[in-house]
């Protein structure tokens, strides 16, 4: 600790702490615009924080200074020189700013407006025409840029350069003509583009989905958690007149450091999609579906389930709250006497020994990423943590078909086994094994579906900890937002789980939610079920197979608990009221009919605040997992399906997000493309299982030879191997 004097007040501060924070700790505000510690080292561009430092003749940008012993700082409160400097800067900032606060969306929640009211001049001495630019410029379908309002704090470009590292936002021109632009004027297409909206301290970057929709004094911000991926970013749901109007981040420094992906930020409007199911539907013989009262629908559901006896299968989505999943599990287990369930994510409890907050990734020396799914598509913010680790000079090694080590598809379990072995490590993994061996802190990230619930990577973690003496954190990325919570709920209510019967008739199938409804395994079960009860927000092929369909709700409409990929229980709060009873309410009513008592009100507990236990108890008692055998080789190229982030029912219903959806593209290794004479961007025919589709060829120099990657939505009906060929000249003309 060092002693710093700020405005005559002595402060004890950790050495090296930023002076803006040191001052804030004793209630002294140093105003800033460009300063934002999450964006890396301070740049001292806006000069708003000018302060007097004893012993230095010139004013100093306090944001660039850190606490050192004996430092004497005088802010504008006590130093005339600093007050003069600060007022000069504010005058310069406002010189060419349009001051169109009455029709600016930032008005009322604008740092520039706030600081101007508090420190700024009451009138302007500027007698010349202000600088003008064309505006607003749509830098993407999601973001509008007003260059006249921009004060060039470079927060957005710094985010793009050194947080998301997409490098798409740049400053162009120089001096008074400096502008923010996208690289080569291409649309800003990136997973995290929306964060610049919140970073912007003025109304220069506004979202097309919120522009002109609401004023700060007529909105309410509901603190809740995003329910679109397993990270569980903390958010504010801004509501106006009972509708969600936007999503803002609510910084949880251990989970997401305040960053959100564009799906989490912009997909909220699917709540108000035209085609949302609003009333229960019951299938009536020869007449198709009829709208039914809630009571009638429950009657039909009860009748269908009773007729099935104990031949019941339940398919979970992984988007249910823990309370919802518990209720459904109790109905199936206690009320109906079945234990057959499809869980989207399984979970091995032994992994709890390697639990750590996501922020621990940044402190690792070595990060090992396993599995075929790109991390950014599965749990986007984890990708930002990995980038932060790399910037902090950690070694980040991806082992997958397009990784630093180009492993065969589906070989992650084998890679774990090889690395655990230690002796006969295959050549391509030797460097990785060496790095792991010398590391003090290791983060292991598993990024694909794992039927064993993470046991392979768990065994590797155990090995590294027991024999390598490393601190190990394991992050198994579930496929679904609350897959961990749903699995926990299922196993808490009863023992074990049986798989649904592989063939033959099924008495009843309960499909819980839209993700389960779009699962091909569930479609197969539905075809064999005498009775199908489905809850969903939207119609799908599966609702057409159902006998009773109950309208579902979204994560923004429910109270309850989600467990994120760290195993952290977090509370969902109802931002808006759904138009009918939510799932928990009708599950309670259904349960009553089967003699099971369920509280229809979710009662989140203090567990939300639970500390993460340090990883010091290691209980790896289960037998080591056996790696599954590799897939047999065959003709053609091996297909890896990418589950793109920007896909699914919610994204499909947001017009502004369509440009983010995965392109109809097949990614080829450079060598595979050249042997087939395929040029990048060329149209090619991909054939598999008797299905042919025309896709654009994309070349990836990092992709393993013999492997292609196609976004899942463009790989429907394909098998594990595909043929890729050029469009014959006749067809392409």
């Amino acid at each position: 600790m060092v002693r710093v004097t700020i405005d005559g007040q002595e402060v004890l501060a950790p050495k090296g702490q930023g002076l803006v924070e040191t001052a804030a700790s004793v209630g002294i505000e140093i105003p800033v615009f460009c300063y934002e510690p999450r964006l890396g080292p301070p740049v001292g561009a806006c000069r708003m924080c000018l302060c007097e430092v004893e012993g230095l003749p010139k004013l100093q940008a306090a944001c660039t200074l850190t606490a050192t012993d004996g430092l004497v700082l005088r802010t504008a409160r006590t130093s005339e020189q600093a007050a003069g400097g600060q007022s000069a800067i504010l005058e310069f900032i406002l010189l060419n700013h349009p001051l169109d606060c009455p029709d600016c969306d930032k008005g009322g929640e604008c740092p520039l407006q706030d600081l101007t009211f508090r420190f700024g001049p009451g009138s302007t001495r500027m007698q010349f025409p202000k600088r003008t630019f064309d505006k607003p410029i749509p830098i993407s379908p999601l973001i509008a840029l007003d260059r006249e309002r921009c004060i060039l704090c470079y927060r957005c470009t710094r985010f793009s350069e050194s947080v998301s590292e997409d490098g798409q936002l740049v400053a162009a021109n120089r001096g008074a003509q400096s502008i923010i632009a996208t690289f080569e004027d291409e649309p800003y297409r990136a997973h995290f583009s929306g964060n610049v909206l919140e970073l912007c301290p003025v109304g220069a970057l506004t979202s097309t989905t919120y522009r002109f929709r609401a004023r700060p004094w007529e909105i309410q911000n509901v603190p809740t958690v995003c329910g679109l991926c397993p990270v569980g970013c903390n958010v504010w749901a801004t509501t106006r007149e009972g509708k969600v109007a936007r999503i803002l981040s609510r910084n949880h420094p251990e989970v997401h450091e305040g960053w959100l992906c564009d799906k989490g930020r912009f997909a909220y409007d699917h709540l108000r999609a035209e085609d949302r199911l609003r009333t229960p539907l019951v299938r009536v013989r020869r007449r198709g579906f009829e709208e039914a009262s809630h009571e009638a629908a429950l009657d039909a559901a009860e009748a269908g389930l009773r007729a099935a006896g104990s031949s019941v299968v339940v398919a979970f989505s992984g988007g249910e709250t823990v309370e919802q999943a518990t209720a459904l599990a109790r109905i199936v287990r206690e009320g109906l006497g079945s234990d057959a369930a499809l869980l989207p994510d399984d979970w091995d409890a032994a992994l709890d020994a390697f639990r750590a907050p996501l922020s621990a990734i940044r402190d690792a020396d070595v990060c090992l990423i396993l599995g075929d799914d790109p991390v950014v598509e599965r749990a986007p913010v984890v990708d930002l943590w990995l980038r932060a680790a790399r910037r902090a000079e950690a070694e980040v090694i991806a082992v997958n078909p397009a990784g630093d080590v180009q492993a065969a598809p589906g070989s992650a379990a084998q890679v774990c086994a090889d690395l655990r072995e230690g002796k006969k490590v295959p050549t391509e993994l030797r460097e990785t094994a060496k790095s792991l061996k010398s590391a003090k802190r290791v983060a292991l990230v598993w990024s694909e579906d794992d039927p064993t619930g993470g046991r392979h990577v768990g065994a590797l973690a155990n090995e590294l900890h027991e024999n390598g003496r490393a601190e190990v954190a394991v992050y198994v990325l579930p496929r679904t937002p609350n897959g961990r919570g749903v699995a926990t709920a299922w196993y808490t209510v009863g023992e074990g789980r049986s798989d649904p019967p592989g063939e033959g008739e099924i008495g009843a199938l309960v499909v819980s939610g839209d993700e389960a409804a779009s699962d091909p395994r569930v479609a197969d079960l539905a075809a064999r079920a005498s009775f199908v009860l489905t809850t969903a927000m939207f119609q799908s092929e599966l609702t057409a197979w159902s006998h009773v369909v109950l309208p579902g709700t979204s994560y923004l409409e429910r109270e309850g608990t989600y467990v994120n990929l760290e195993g952290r229980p977090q509370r969902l709060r109802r931002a808006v009221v759904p138009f009918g009873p939510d799932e928990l309410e009708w599950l309670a009513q259904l349960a009553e009919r089967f003699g099971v008592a369920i509280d229809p009100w979710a009662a989140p507990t203090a567990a939300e605040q639970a500390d993460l236990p340090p990883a010091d108890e290691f209980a790896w008692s289960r037998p080591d997992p056996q790696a599954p055998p590799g897939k047999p080789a065959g003709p053609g190229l091996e297909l890896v399906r990418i589950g793109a982030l920007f896909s699914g029912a919610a994204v499909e219903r947001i017009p502004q997000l369509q440009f983010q959806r995965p392109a109809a593209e097949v990614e080829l290794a450079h060598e595979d493309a050249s042997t087939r004479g395929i040029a990048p961007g060329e149209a090619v025919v991909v054939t598999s299982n008797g299905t042919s589709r025309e896709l654009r060829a994309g070349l990836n120099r990092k992709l393993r030879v013999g492997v292609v990657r196609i976004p899942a939505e463009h790989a429907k009906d394909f098998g594990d191997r595909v043929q890729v060929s050029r469009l014959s000249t006749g067809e392409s003309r």
Partner: protein
Amino acid sequence: MPRRELLLEDADTRDLTKLAGYEAIGGYASLRKALDMERQAVLAELLDANVRGRGGAGFPMGRKASFLPHPDDTPKPIYLVANADESEPGTFKDREILLRVPHLFVEGVVIAAYTIGSGHAFIYLRGEYLAEFEVVTAALEEARAAGYLGKNVLGSGWDLTVVVHRGAGAYICGEETGLLESLEGRRGQPRTKPPFPAISGLYASPTLINNVETLATVPKILELGGKKYARIGVENSAGTRVFSLSGNVVNGGNYELELGTTLRELIDEIGGGIPDGRELKAIIPGGSSVPVLTAAEVDTPLDFDSMAQAGTMLGSGAVIVIDDRCCMVQLGLRVAQFYMHESCGKCTPCREGTRWMVQLLRKIEEGEATQGELDVLLNVCDRILGNCLCPLGDAAAMPVASYVAKFRDEFQRHIDEGACPFGGESSLAGVLAPVDQHDAHLRSQIEVPGIRAERESLTEAHG
């Protein structure tokens, strides 16, 4: 004070651009001498010489070099960067050195690199200096072939690579941290200091950055010995400087003089005085960014301390002579336009303030300004001064504030008479301001032969 040439010695009588010519006058002997010495001993000579930076700020070179960590104490490489991005208006001394004594400069680079234990030196050359680029690269090639740089320099076991990087035409890249950003391939904008380049410079590694003239002085220091060199010039301003004399003077050009020579000696005796029988009105003694001196101050000696006493700076050693035909408001406008055009846009006061200064000065020159606006102009200068990230903002505010302070009556007449008193007869009238020059250049697509050939080859190379 007598003329004394060190750097440009013999350059008028011999061709020193070729290695043979340079070796004939004892070239590269200083390097041999340095390589026989311990690094610390070479540094001690530089400290003894008390040579101050020739780029503009005048920071003692030896002290700057002594801030770098010893190569054994850092895991990072150490870099030497030669700042050859000469672009301060009125300054053309580095190009003289590069064109006429390139080997002296190269020798200085090699010795300086050896002194700080660097294996990699970069020469950041102003993009417009095409001929200089060719001369310097030829000299480097000759020196490399002769073993003065490259692998195992003169059998010492020490390797040095030298890379010439050409700028893309930005004044701000002459500022050391802006230069480093540009050299790293980024947008040329200054960094905050600290950390200083000596600790974290190029690629976040310890870096010594010196001006061309400073580096060219190094072989001479070793030749004479630091103590002896320190006796040249006056106290606190050791050695000689190459002064770029320009403006309303009969014999403009570069003159190497001992520090402490008076302005009068330079202008009248060496420069031949003011042409056409005009009167001396003002002198800019160190490049366009420094405060102006009046004709009455012509006896001020050209050294660091005397200039500071007179309220100005020696700067880059560019002496611009202004006669009585020049309108000081127009001069202020020209200077402000230059800095507005070259402001990088990173920090607020410089970006916004220089533009406001230009607007106000133009209004004054056009005779449209009110009394209040003259006060606003002075206040704007005051509000820029000392509040910027780098010295560029100050470089615009300082001279303009000094023009108003020393020639206030002239500014006042613009306001009182509602027009420029020079009525289009000013020596600056009709001369395009840099901003307009730039626009005119873009419009007319002026083709400079060498540049065109280069542009064509670039187009071919990049398809």
